[in-house]
Protein backbone atom coordinates (compact mmCIF):
# COMPACT_ATOMS: atom_id res chain seq x y z
CA UNK A 1 0.00 0.00 0.00
CA UNK A 2 1.21 3.56 -0.75
CA UNK A 3 2.11 6.04 1.98
CA UNK A 4 -0.92 8.10 3.13
CA UNK A 5 0.33 11.27 1.46
CA UNK A 6 0.39 9.52 -1.92
CA UNK A 7 -3.26 8.52 -1.60
CA UNK A 8 -6.30 10.34 -2.95
CA UNK A 9 -9.37 11.04 -0.84
CA UNK A 10 -11.05 8.05 -2.51
CA UNK A 11 -8.10 5.77 -1.71
CA UNK A 12 -7.80 7.01 1.87
CA UNK A 13 -11.51 6.48 2.33
CA UNK A 14 -11.23 2.87 1.14
CA UNK A 15 -8.19 2.17 3.35
CA UNK A 16 -9.91 3.68 6.40
CA UNK A 17 -13.13 1.74 5.82
CA UNK A 18 -11.13 -1.48 5.41
CA UNK A 19 -9.21 -0.60 8.60
CA UNK A 20 -5.91 -0.97 6.78
CA UNK A 21 -5.04 2.48 8.14
CA UNK A 22 -6.34 4.36 11.14
CA UNK A 23 -7.31 8.02 10.96
CA UNK A 24 -4.76 8.77 13.69
CA UNK A 25 -1.97 7.25 11.54
CA UNK A 26 -3.12 9.15 8.46
CA UNK A 27 -3.53 12.40 10.37
CA UNK A 28 -0.08 12.08 11.96
CA UNK A 29 1.50 11.43 8.57
CA UNK A 30 -0.03 14.58 7.08
CA UNK A 31 0.67 16.72 10.16
CA UNK A 32 4.30 15.68 9.94
CA UNK A 33 4.45 16.93 6.32
CA UNK A 34 2.53 20.13 7.12
CA UNK A 35 5.01 20.96 9.90
CA UNK A 36 8.09 19.95 7.89
CA UNK A 37 7.18 22.17 4.94
CA UNK A 38 5.84 25.18 6.81
CA UNK A 39 9.18 27.03 6.67
CA UNK A 40 9.70 26.56 2.91
CA UNK A 41 6.07 26.94 1.68
CA UNK A 42 4.24 28.97 4.38
CA UNK A 43 1.02 27.28 3.23
CA UNK A 44 -0.67 27.38 6.65
CA UNK A 45 -1.64 30.18 9.03
CA UNK A 46 -2.66 27.80 11.84
CA UNK A 47 -1.76 24.16 12.30
CA UNK A 48 -4.36 22.62 14.60
CA UNK A 49 -2.45 19.43 15.44
CA UNK A 50 -3.92 18.79 18.87
CA UNK A 51 -7.54 19.16 17.81
CA UNK A 52 -6.82 17.11 14.66
CA UNK A 53 -5.59 14.13 16.67
CA UNK A 54 -8.65 14.29 18.93
CA UNK A 55 -10.93 14.35 15.86
CA UNK A 56 -8.94 11.51 14.29
CA UNK A 57 -9.35 9.36 17.42
CA UNK A 58 -13.10 10.07 17.36
CA UNK A 59 -13.19 9.12 13.68
CA UNK A 60 -11.41 5.85 14.46
CA UNK A 61 -14.01 5.11 17.13
CA UNK A 62 -16.78 5.70 14.57
CA UNK A 63 -14.99 3.50 12.05
CA UNK A 64 -14.62 0.72 14.64
CA UNK A 65 -18.29 1.01 15.56
CA UNK A 66 -19.27 0.89 11.84
CA UNK A 67 -20.92 4.28 12.33
CA UNK A 68 -18.85 5.96 9.63
CA UNK A 69 -19.49 7.63 6.30
CA UNK A 70 -17.14 7.63 3.30
CA UNK A 71 -15.25 10.70 4.52
CA UNK A 72 -14.90 9.70 8.18
CA UNK A 73 -11.27 10.02 9.24
CA UNK A 74 -10.06 11.71 6.04
CA UNK A 75 -7.97 14.82 6.80
CA UNK A 76 -8.55 18.17 5.12
CA UNK A 77 -7.36 21.77 5.48
CA UNK A 78 -9.70 24.76 5.54
CA UNK A 79 -8.93 28.09 3.93
CA UNK A 80 -8.59 30.61 6.75
CA UNK A 81 -11.68 32.45 5.49
CA UNK A 82 -14.01 29.77 6.95
CA UNK A 83 -14.95 30.24 10.59
CA UNK A 84 -13.86 27.32 12.76
CA UNK A 85 -15.20 27.21 16.30
CA UNK A 86 -12.57 27.79 18.97
CA UNK A 87 -9.75 28.29 16.46
CA UNK A 88 -8.38 31.44 14.90
CA UNK A 89 -9.92 32.68 11.65
CA UNK A 90 -7.68 35.48 10.38
CA UNK A 91 -8.68 35.84 6.71
CA UNK A 92 -5.00 36.59 6.12
CA UNK A 93 -5.38 40.00 7.78
CA UNK A 94 -3.88 41.89 10.69
CA UNK A 95 -7.47 43.03 11.30
CA UNK A 96 -8.47 39.50 12.37
CA UNK A 97 -5.06 38.25 13.55
CA UNK A 98 -6.47 37.40 16.99
CA UNK A 99 -10.05 36.57 16.05
CA UNK A 100 -11.29 33.26 17.48
CA UNK A 101 -14.49 32.12 15.77
CA UNK A 102 -17.43 31.60 18.10
CA UNK A 103 -19.07 29.24 15.60
CA UNK A 104 -18.38 26.97 12.62
CA UNK A 105 -19.09 27.96 9.03
CA UNK A 106 -21.75 25.70 7.49
CA UNK A 107 -19.08 24.16 5.21
CA UNK A 108 -16.92 23.33 8.24
CA UNK A 109 -19.90 22.07 10.24
CA UNK A 110 -21.02 19.73 7.43
CA UNK A 111 -17.56 18.31 6.81
CA UNK A 112 -17.07 17.88 10.56
CA UNK A 113 -20.37 16.00 10.77
CA UNK A 114 -19.14 13.75 7.95
CA UNK A 115 -16.15 12.89 10.15
CA UNK A 116 -13.51 14.88 8.23
CA UNK A 117 -10.45 15.80 10.33
CA UNK A 118 -9.15 19.39 10.16
CA UNK A 119 -5.33 19.68 9.91
CA UNK A 120 -5.25 23.47 10.01
CA UNK A 121 -6.12 26.73 8.29
CA UNK A 122 -4.47 27.64 5.01
CA UNK A 123 -2.80 30.91 4.10
CA UNK A 124 -4.53 33.26 1.66
CA UNK A 125 -4.46 36.75 0.23
CA UNK A 126 -5.84 39.24 2.75
CA UNK A 127 -9.65 39.03 2.73
CA UNK A 128 -9.28 36.93 -0.46
CA UNK A 129 -8.15 40.01 -2.41
CA UNK A 130 -5.21 39.06 -4.55
CA UNK A 131 -3.99 36.69 -7.25
CA UNK A 132 -0.57 35.76 -5.88
CA UNK A 133 -0.98 35.25 -2.12
CA UNK A 134 1.42 38.17 -1.65
CA UNK A 135 -1.15 40.34 0.16
CA UNK A 136 -1.36 37.99 3.17
CA UNK A 137 -0.44 39.64 6.48
CA UNK A 138 1.26 36.32 7.30
CA UNK A 139 3.63 36.43 4.32
CA UNK A 140 3.39 34.92 0.85
CA UNK A 141 2.93 31.22 0.13
CA UNK A 142 5.57 29.68 -2.16
CA UNK A 143 4.74 27.55 -5.17
CA UNK A 144 5.94 23.97 -4.55
CA UNK A 145 6.93 23.64 -8.23
CA UNK A 146 9.40 26.52 -7.80
CA UNK A 147 9.64 28.32 -4.47
CA UNK A 148 10.76 31.53 -6.19
CA UNK A 149 7.28 31.70 -7.78
CA UNK A 150 3.80 32.54 -6.50
CA UNK A 151 1.18 29.83 -5.95
CA UNK A 152 -1.56 32.14 -7.22
CA UNK A 153 -4.35 33.48 -5.08
CA UNK A 154 -6.31 34.07 -3.17
CA UNK A 155 -6.50 30.37 -2.12
CA UNK A 156 -2.73 30.03 -2.53
CA UNK A 157 -2.22 28.12 0.71
CA UNK A 158 -4.90 25.55 -0.14
CA UNK A 159 -3.47 25.01 -3.64
CA UNK A 160 0.17 24.77 -2.51
CA UNK A 161 -0.77 22.41 0.35
CA UNK A 162 -2.65 20.02 -1.96
CA UNK A 163 0.10 20.16 -4.63
CA UNK A 164 2.83 19.43 -2.05
CA UNK A 165 0.85 16.51 -0.59
CA UNK A 166 0.49 18.24 2.79
CA UNK A 167 -3.24 17.47 2.76
CA UNK A 168 -5.37 15.28 0.47
CA UNK A 169 -7.74 18.20 -0.17
CA UNK A 170 -8.57 21.70 1.00
CA UNK A 171 -11.55 24.02 1.01
CA UNK A 172 -11.20 27.30 -0.86
CA UNK A 173 -13.31 30.22 -2.08
CA UNK A 174 -13.64 31.88 -5.45
CA UNK A 175 -14.82 35.46 -6.04
CA UNK A 176 -12.97 36.16 -9.30
CA UNK A 177 -10.84 33.04 -9.77
CA UNK A 178 -9.45 32.44 -6.29
CA UNK A 179 -9.94 28.65 -6.49
CA UNK A 180 -9.18 28.05 -10.17
CA UNK A 181 -6.19 30.37 -10.68
CA UNK A 182 -4.07 28.98 -7.80
CA UNK A 183 -5.17 25.42 -8.69
CA UNK A 184 -3.88 26.10 -12.23
CA UNK A 185 -0.56 27.55 -11.09
CA UNK A 186 0.03 24.68 -8.64
CA UNK A 187 -1.05 21.81 -10.93
CA UNK A 188 -4.10 20.67 -8.96
CA UNK A 189 -7.86 20.46 -9.54
CA UNK A 190 -10.00 23.44 -8.47
CA UNK A 191 -13.80 23.46 -8.44
CA UNK A 192 -15.91 26.62 -8.09
CA UNK A 193 -19.55 25.54 -7.77
CA UNK A 194 -22.59 27.49 -8.99
CA UNK A 195 -23.39 30.63 -6.97
CA UNK A 196 -25.74 29.51 -4.18
CA UNK A 197 -24.74 25.82 -4.30
CA UNK A 198 -22.50 25.95 -1.20
CA UNK A 199 -23.50 27.96 1.87
CA UNK A 200 -21.65 31.22 2.49
CA UNK A 201 -22.62 31.22 6.19
CA UNK A 202 -19.48 31.66 8.27
CA UNK A 203 -17.35 32.40 5.23
CA UNK A 204 -15.91 35.91 5.68
CA UNK A 205 -17.66 38.05 3.06
CA UNK A 206 -15.73 39.87 0.31
CA UNK A 207 -18.17 40.42 -2.60
CA UNK A 208 -21.43 38.72 -1.72
CA UNK A 209 -22.90 38.45 -5.23
CA UNK A 210 -19.74 36.67 -6.44
CA UNK A 211 -18.29 34.71 -3.46
CA UNK A 212 -18.64 30.93 -3.61
CA UNK A 213 -17.03 28.20 -1.54
CA UNK A 214 -15.48 25.20 -3.25
CA UNK A 215 -12.57 22.80 -3.29
CA UNK A 216 -8.99 22.23 -4.25
CA UNK A 217 -8.21 18.54 -4.72
CA UNK A 218 -5.91 16.24 -6.67
CA UNK A 219 -8.69 14.99 -8.94
CA UNK A 220 -12.27 15.56 -10.06
CA UNK A 221 -13.20 12.30 -8.35
CA UNK A 222 -12.06 13.66 -4.97
CA UNK A 223 -13.86 16.95 -5.63
CA UNK A 224 -17.08 15.01 -6.33
CA UNK A 225 -16.77 13.07 -3.06
CA UNK A 226 -16.27 16.22 -0.98
CA UNK A 227 -18.74 18.48 -2.80
CA UNK A 228 -21.57 16.09 -1.96
CA UNK A 229 -20.82 16.59 1.75
CA UNK A 230 -20.43 20.39 1.53
CA UNK A 231 -23.20 21.47 -0.78
CA UNK A 232 -26.88 22.01 -0.13
CA UNK A 233 -29.49 24.38 1.16
CA UNK A 234 -28.76 26.40 4.29
CA UNK A 235 -31.41 28.69 5.70
CA UNK A 236 -28.69 30.81 7.33
CA UNK A 237 -27.47 31.99 3.90
CA UNK A 238 -30.19 34.01 2.19
CA UNK A 239 -28.68 33.30 -1.25
CA UNK A 240 -28.43 29.54 -0.70
CA UNK A 241 -30.52 27.72 -3.30
CA UNK A 242 -33.18 25.18 -2.35
CA UNK A 243 -32.22 22.36 -4.69
CA UNK A 244 -31.41 18.75 -3.81
CA UNK A 245 -27.74 17.73 -3.90
CA UNK A 246 -27.14 15.12 -6.60
CA UNK A 247 -24.89 12.09 -6.11
CA UNK A 248 -21.86 13.70 -7.77
CA UNK A 249 -19.78 10.59 -7.44
CA UNK A 250 -22.46 8.36 -8.91
CA UNK A 251 -22.40 10.09 -12.31
CA UNK A 252 -18.62 9.94 -12.77
CA UNK A 253 -17.38 7.89 -15.69
CA UNK A 254 -20.44 8.26 -17.91
CA UNK A 255 -19.46 8.29 -21.59
CA UNK A 256 -19.12 11.72 -23.20
CA UNK A 257 -19.98 10.60 -26.71
CA UNK A 258 -21.91 13.40 -28.40
CA UNK A 259 -21.14 15.93 -25.67
CA UNK A 260 -20.91 19.36 -27.27
CA UNK A 261 -17.86 21.34 -26.16
CA UNK A 262 -17.53 25.01 -27.05
CA UNK A 263 -14.07 26.49 -27.45
CA UNK A 264 -14.13 30.06 -26.22
CA UNK A 265 -12.87 32.11 -29.12
CA UNK A 266 -12.20 35.25 -27.06
CA UNK A 267 -9.93 33.31 -24.69
CA UNK A 268 -7.53 32.33 -27.47
CA UNK A 269 -7.41 35.75 -29.15
CA UNK A 270 -4.29 37.33 -27.68
CA UNK A 271 -2.16 37.36 -24.58
CA UNK A 272 -2.29 33.60 -24.01
CA UNK A 273 1.00 31.72 -23.58
CA UNK A 274 1.30 29.63 -26.81
CA UNK A 275 2.37 26.54 -24.87
CA UNK A 276 -0.76 26.70 -22.70
CA UNK A 277 -2.83 26.94 -25.88
CA UNK A 278 -1.05 23.87 -27.32
CA UNK A 279 -1.76 21.87 -24.16
CA UNK A 280 -5.44 22.81 -24.20
CA UNK A 281 -5.73 21.90 -27.90
CA UNK A 282 -4.18 18.52 -27.04
CA UNK A 283 -6.70 18.05 -24.21
CA UNK A 284 -9.53 18.91 -26.62
CA UNK A 285 -8.19 16.26 -29.06
CA UNK A 286 -8.28 13.73 -26.24
CA UNK A 287 -11.91 14.60 -25.43
CA UNK A 288 -12.76 14.48 -29.15
CA UNK A 289 -11.27 10.99 -29.33
CA UNK A 290 -13.79 9.99 -26.63
CA UNK A 291 -16.64 11.16 -28.84
CA UNK A 292 -17.09 14.79 -27.79
CA UNK A 293 -18.00 17.27 -30.51
CA UNK A 294 -15.85 20.39 -30.50
CA UNK A 295 -17.01 23.71 -31.94
CA UNK A 296 -16.04 27.35 -31.59
CA UNK A 297 -18.26 29.69 -29.59
CA UNK A 298 -18.00 33.45 -29.27
CA UNK A 299 -18.91 35.52 -26.21
CA UNK A 300 -18.38 39.05 -27.52
CA UNK A 301 -18.81 40.84 -24.17
CA UNK A 302 -16.48 38.55 -22.25
CA UNK A 303 -13.40 40.77 -22.74
CA UNK A 304 -15.16 43.33 -20.53
CA UNK A 305 -15.15 40.94 -17.56
CA UNK A 306 -12.17 42.49 -15.80
CA UNK A 307 -13.38 46.12 -15.82
CA UNK A 308 -16.87 44.97 -14.82
CA UNK A 309 -15.47 42.98 -11.92
CA UNK A 310 -13.32 45.88 -10.70
CA UNK A 311 -16.46 47.93 -10.18
CA UNK A 312 -18.80 45.27 -8.75
CA UNK A 313 -16.32 43.49 -6.45
CA UNK A 314 -14.80 46.62 -4.83
CA UNK A 315 -18.29 48.13 -4.39
CA UNK A 316 -19.46 45.06 -2.48
CA UNK A 317 -16.15 44.86 -0.60
CA UNK A 318 -16.40 48.46 0.54
CA UNK A 319 -19.87 47.72 1.91
CA UNK A 320 -18.99 44.33 3.49
CA UNK A 321 -15.79 45.52 5.14
CA UNK A 322 -17.56 48.48 6.75
CA UNK A 323 -18.29 46.05 9.61
CA UNK A 324 -14.67 46.26 10.79
CA UNK A 325 -14.96 49.21 13.12
CA UNK A 326 -12.48 48.43 15.91
CA UNK A 327 -15.39 48.14 18.37
CA UNK A 328 -16.97 44.68 18.28
CA UNK A 329 -14.07 42.56 17.07
CA UNK A 330 -10.86 42.91 15.14
CA UNK A 331 -7.90 45.25 15.40
CA UNK A 332 -8.22 48.43 17.47
CA UNK A 333 -5.74 51.31 17.42
CA UNK A 334 -4.08 52.58 20.61
CA UNK A 335 -5.37 55.69 22.41
CA UNK A 336 -8.11 56.89 20.03
CA UNK A 337 -8.89 60.62 20.40
CA UNK A 338 -12.55 60.19 19.51
CA UNK A 339 -14.88 57.77 17.73
CA UNK A 340 -13.92 58.90 14.23
CA UNK A 341 -10.22 58.55 15.04
CA UNK A 342 -10.94 55.06 16.43
CA UNK A 343 -12.62 53.97 13.18
CA UNK A 344 -10.08 55.55 10.87
CA UNK A 345 -6.89 54.44 12.55
CA UNK A 346 -8.16 50.94 13.45
CA UNK A 347 -9.06 50.40 9.79
CA UNK A 348 -5.98 52.17 8.45
CA UNK A 349 -3.70 49.96 10.57
CA UNK A 350 -5.73 46.74 10.38
CA UNK A 351 -6.07 46.53 6.58
CA UNK A 352 -3.19 46.06 4.13
CA UNK A 353 -2.55 48.09 0.98
CA UNK A 354 -4.57 46.00 -1.50
CA UNK A 355 -7.62 45.80 0.77
CA UNK A 356 -7.54 49.56 1.29
CA UNK A 357 -7.19 50.08 -2.48
CA UNK A 358 -10.32 48.00 -3.09
CA UNK A 359 -12.33 49.60 -0.29
CA UNK A 360 -11.50 53.03 -1.72
CA UNK A 361 -12.28 51.98 -5.30
CA UNK A 362 -15.63 50.67 -4.09
CA UNK A 363 -16.35 53.76 -2.03
CA UNK A 364 -15.59 55.89 -5.08
CA UNK A 365 -17.80 54.01 -7.56
CA UNK A 366 -20.69 54.06 -5.09
CA UNK A 367 -20.32 57.71 -4.11
CA UNK A 368 -22.86 60.38 -4.96
CA UNK A 369 -22.73 61.37 -8.62
CA UNK A 370 -20.78 58.27 -9.72
CA UNK A 371 -23.17 55.43 -8.87
CA UNK A 372 -24.99 55.47 -12.24
CA UNK A 373 -21.88 56.00 -14.32
CA UNK A 374 -19.89 53.19 -12.74
CA UNK A 375 -21.92 50.80 -10.60
CA UNK A 376 -25.11 50.62 -12.66
CA UNK A 377 -23.11 50.63 -15.88
CA UNK A 378 -21.06 47.65 -14.63
CA UNK A 379 -24.19 45.74 -13.58
CA UNK A 380 -25.60 46.29 -17.09
CA UNK A 381 -22.43 44.96 -18.72
CA UNK A 382 -22.54 42.07 -16.25
CA UNK A 383 -25.99 41.23 -17.61
CA UNK A 384 -24.61 41.29 -21.17
CA UNK A 385 -21.84 38.86 -20.18
CA UNK A 386 -24.36 36.61 -18.49
CA UNK A 387 -26.56 36.71 -21.62
CA UNK A 388 -23.54 35.71 -23.74
CA UNK A 389 -23.04 32.60 -21.62
CA UNK A 390 -26.74 31.78 -21.72
CA UNK A 391 -26.71 31.92 -25.51
CA UNK A 392 -23.58 29.74 -25.64
CA UNK A 393 -25.25 27.08 -23.46
CA UNK A 394 -28.08 26.84 -25.99
CA UNK A 395 -25.47 25.65 -28.49
CA UNK A 396 -23.04 23.63 -26.37
CA UNK A 397 -23.02 21.63 -23.10
CA UNK A 398 -19.82 23.08 -21.64
CA UNK A 399 -17.24 25.63 -22.71
CA UNK A 400 -13.50 25.16 -22.44
CA UNK A 401 -10.65 27.64 -22.33
CA UNK A 402 -7.49 28.37 -20.40
CA UNK A 403 -7.59 29.14 -16.65
CA UNK A 404 -4.66 31.57 -16.68
CA UNK A 405 -2.76 33.46 -19.42
CA UNK A 406 0.65 32.30 -18.12
CA UNK A 407 2.20 29.74 -15.78
CA UNK A 408 3.24 30.79 -12.25
CA UNK A 409 5.16 34.09 -12.20
CA UNK A 410 7.96 35.12 -9.86
CA UNK A 411 7.27 36.57 -6.43
CA UNK A 412 7.27 40.36 -6.66
CA UNK A 413 6.90 40.40 -10.47
CA UNK A 414 3.44 42.01 -10.52
CA UNK A 415 3.13 43.84 -7.22
CA UNK A 416 3.93 47.35 -8.49
CA UNK A 417 0.85 47.86 -10.69
CA UNK A 418 -2.57 46.66 -9.47
CA UNK A 419 -3.98 46.43 -13.00
CA UNK A 420 -1.19 44.06 -14.16
CA UNK A 421 -2.07 41.79 -11.23
CA UNK A 422 -5.81 42.03 -11.94
CA UNK A 423 -5.33 40.83 -15.52
CA UNK A 424 -4.26 37.39 -14.20
CA UNK A 425 -7.94 36.71 -13.64
CA UNK A 426 -9.01 37.61 -17.17
CA UNK A 427 -10.27 34.06 -17.92
CA UNK A 428 -11.79 33.23 -14.55
CA UNK A 429 -13.91 36.29 -13.72
CA UNK A 430 -16.64 35.61 -16.32
CA UNK A 431 -17.93 32.54 -14.46
CA UNK A 432 -18.23 34.55 -11.24
CA UNK A 433 -20.08 37.42 -12.90
CA UNK A 434 -22.59 34.96 -14.39
CA UNK A 435 -22.77 32.73 -11.26
CA UNK A 436 -21.64 29.66 -13.24
CA UNK A 437 -19.78 26.55 -12.04
CA UNK A 438 -16.25 26.03 -13.38
CA UNK A 439 -13.38 23.65 -12.83
CA UNK A 440 -9.66 24.01 -13.52
CA UNK A 441 -7.58 20.93 -14.38
CA UNK A 442 -3.87 20.50 -14.97
CA UNK A 443 -3.18 19.68 -18.64
CA UNK A 444 0.59 19.90 -19.06
CA UNK A 445 3.96 21.14 -17.88
CA UNK A 446 5.79 24.05 -19.47
CA UNK A 447 9.42 24.55 -18.39
CA UNK A 448 8.66 22.53 -15.27
CA UNK A 449 5.54 24.53 -14.35
CA UNK A 450 1.92 23.32 -14.54
CA UNK A 451 -0.47 24.53 -17.26
CA UNK A 452 -4.24 24.25 -16.94
CA UNK A 453 -7.55 24.28 -18.73
CA UNK A 454 -10.89 25.48 -17.45
CA UNK A 455 -14.30 23.93 -18.08
CA UNK A 456 -17.33 26.15 -17.47
CA UNK A 457 -20.87 24.77 -17.34
CA UNK A 458 -24.43 26.05 -17.07
CA UNK A 459 -25.95 26.84 -13.65
CA UNK A 460 -25.99 23.72 -11.42
CA UNK A 461 -24.04 21.77 -14.07
CA UNK A 462 -21.49 20.47 -11.55
CA UNK A 463 -22.24 16.83 -12.41
CA UNK A 464 -21.45 17.42 -16.06
CA UNK A 465 -18.26 19.37 -15.27
CA UNK A 466 -17.02 16.74 -12.85
CA UNK A 467 -17.81 13.97 -15.31
CA UNK A 468 -15.97 15.61 -18.22
CA UNK A 469 -13.03 16.37 -15.92
CA UNK A 470 -12.99 12.79 -14.64
CA UNK A 471 -13.10 11.39 -18.18
CA UNK A 472 -10.10 13.56 -19.03
CA UNK A 473 -8.24 12.48 -15.89
CA UNK A 474 -8.92 8.79 -16.63
CA UNK A 475 -6.97 9.20 -19.89
CA UNK A 476 -4.23 11.60 -18.75
CA UNK A 477 -1.82 11.75 -15.84
CA UNK A 478 -1.06 15.47 -15.44
CA UNK A 479 -3.07 15.53 -12.22
CA UNK A 480 -0.82 12.82 -10.79
CA UNK A 481 2.41 14.76 -11.24
CA UNK A 482 4.10 15.72 -7.99
CA UNK A 483 6.39 18.76 -7.64
CA UNK A 484 10.03 17.61 -7.40
CA UNK A 485 11.03 17.23 -3.76
CA UNK A 486 7.47 16.57 -2.53
CA UNK A 487 6.94 12.97 -3.67
Amino acid at each position, binding site marked *: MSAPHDMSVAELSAALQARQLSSVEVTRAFLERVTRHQADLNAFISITAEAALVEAAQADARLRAKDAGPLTGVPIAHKDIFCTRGEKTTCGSRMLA*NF*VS*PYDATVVERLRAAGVVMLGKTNMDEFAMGSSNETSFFGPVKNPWDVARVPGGSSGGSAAAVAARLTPAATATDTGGSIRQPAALCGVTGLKP*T*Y*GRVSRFGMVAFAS*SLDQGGLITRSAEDAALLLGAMAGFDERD*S*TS*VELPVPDYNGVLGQPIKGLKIGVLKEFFDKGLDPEIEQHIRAALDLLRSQGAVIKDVSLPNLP*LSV*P*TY*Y*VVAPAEC*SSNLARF*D*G*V*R*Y*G*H*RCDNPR*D*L*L*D*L*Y*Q*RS*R*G*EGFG*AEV*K*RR*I*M*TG*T*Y*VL*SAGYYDA*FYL*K*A*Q*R*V*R*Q*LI*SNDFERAFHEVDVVIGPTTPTTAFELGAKTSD*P*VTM*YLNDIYTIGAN*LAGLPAISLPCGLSHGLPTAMQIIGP*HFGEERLLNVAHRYQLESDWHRRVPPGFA
Partner: protein
Amino acid sequence: MSLNRSDIVNIARLARLALTEQEIPLYVEGLSRIMGLVGELDRADTSQVEPMAHPLPGQRQRLRFDSVTETDRHELYQRNAPQVEAGLYLVPRVIE
Protein backbone atom coordinates in the same frame (compact mmCIF):
# COMPACT_ATOMS: atom_id res chain seq x y z
CA MET B 1 -9.59 58.69 -15.87
CA SER B 2 -7.34 60.38 -13.39
CA LEU B 3 -7.86 61.08 -9.69
CA ASN B 4 -5.92 63.65 -7.69
CA ARG B 5 -4.73 64.01 -4.14
CA SER B 6 -7.87 65.71 -2.87
CA ASP B 7 -10.07 62.98 -4.42
CA ILE B 8 -8.10 60.34 -2.49
CA VAL B 9 -8.26 62.27 0.77
CA ASN B 10 -12.01 62.63 0.33
CA ILE B 11 -12.55 58.94 -0.56
CA ALA B 12 -10.44 57.85 2.43
CA ARG B 13 -12.56 60.03 4.69
CA LEU B 14 -15.79 58.50 3.32
CA ALA B 15 -14.30 55.01 3.76
CA ARG B 16 -13.11 55.80 7.31
CA LEU B 17 -9.51 54.91 6.50
CA ALA B 18 -6.59 56.83 8.01
CA LEU B 19 -3.86 57.13 5.37
CA THR B 20 -0.26 58.20 5.98
CA GLU B 21 1.29 60.96 3.83
CA GLN B 22 3.40 58.31 2.08
CA GLU B 23 0.34 56.22 1.19
CA ILE B 24 -1.61 58.99 -0.54
CA PRO B 25 0.43 59.15 -3.81
CA LEU B 26 0.28 55.34 -4.09
CA TYR B 27 -3.51 55.43 -4.04
CA VAL B 28 -3.64 58.42 -6.43
CA GLU B 29 -1.74 56.30 -8.93
CA GLY B 30 -3.45 52.95 -8.14
CA LEU B 31 -7.01 54.23 -8.29
CA SER B 32 -6.29 56.26 -11.44
CA ARG B 33 -5.05 53.11 -13.15
CA ILE B 34 -8.04 51.09 -11.95
CA MET B 35 -10.49 53.76 -13.13
CA GLY B 36 -8.65 53.79 -16.47
CA LEU B 37 -9.39 50.08 -16.77
CA VAL B 38 -13.01 50.66 -15.72
CA GLY B 39 -13.30 53.25 -18.51
CA GLU B 40 -13.31 50.35 -21.00
CA LEU B 41 -16.93 49.74 -19.99
CA ASP B 42 -17.90 52.75 -22.11
CA ARG B 43 -17.30 50.54 -25.17
CA ALA B 44 -20.40 48.48 -24.37
CA ASP B 45 -23.80 49.60 -25.60
CA THR B 46 -26.02 49.05 -22.58
CA SER B 47 -28.97 51.19 -23.67
CA GLN B 48 -31.24 48.12 -24.03
CA VAL B 49 -30.25 46.19 -20.91
CA GLU B 50 -31.31 46.34 -17.27
CA PRO B 51 -28.68 46.18 -14.52
CA MET B 52 -28.22 42.62 -13.25
CA ALA B 53 -29.86 42.12 -9.87
CA HIS B 54 -28.98 38.49 -9.06
CA PRO B 55 -26.40 36.05 -10.48
CA LEU B 56 -29.07 33.37 -10.94
CA PRO B 57 -31.91 34.25 -13.31
CA GLY B 58 -35.30 34.33 -11.65
CA GLN B 59 -33.94 34.07 -8.10
CA ARG B 60 -35.31 36.37 -5.45
CA GLN B 61 -33.94 37.19 -2.05
CA ARG B 62 -35.50 34.70 0.36
CA LEU B 63 -37.11 36.14 3.49
CA ARG B 64 -37.60 34.49 6.86
CA PHE B 65 -40.33 34.85 9.44
CA ASP B 66 -39.74 37.70 11.86
CA SER B 67 -39.28 35.46 14.86
CA VAL B 68 -36.59 34.96 17.49
CA THR B 69 -34.27 32.14 16.44
CA GLU B 70 -31.04 32.99 18.25
CA THR B 71 -30.25 32.63 21.92
CA ASP B 72 -28.36 35.34 23.83
CA ARG B 73 -24.66 34.59 23.43
CA HIS B 74 -23.23 38.04 24.00
CA GLU B 75 -20.58 36.79 26.45
CA LEU B 76 -19.18 34.40 23.87
CA TYR B 77 -19.26 37.02 21.12
CA GLN B 78 -17.74 39.73 23.29
CA ARG B 79 -14.65 37.61 23.92
CA ASN B 80 -13.40 38.98 20.60
CA ALA B 81 -14.13 42.61 21.50
CA PRO B 82 -11.15 44.90 22.13
CA GLN B 83 -12.79 46.60 25.14
CA VAL B 84 -15.85 45.50 27.08
CA GLU B 85 -17.26 46.45 30.45
CA ALA B 86 -20.41 45.07 32.12
CA GLY B 87 -21.51 43.53 28.83
CA LEU B 88 -21.10 46.82 26.95
CA TYR B 89 -18.69 47.67 24.14
CA LEU B 90 -16.50 50.61 25.17
CA VAL B 91 -15.74 53.45 22.76
CA PRO B 92 -14.25 56.94 23.33
CA ARG B 93 -16.62 59.48 24.85
CA VAL B 94 -19.13 60.66 22.23
CA ILE B 95 -21.03 63.35 24.19
CA GLU B 96 -18.97 65.85 26.21
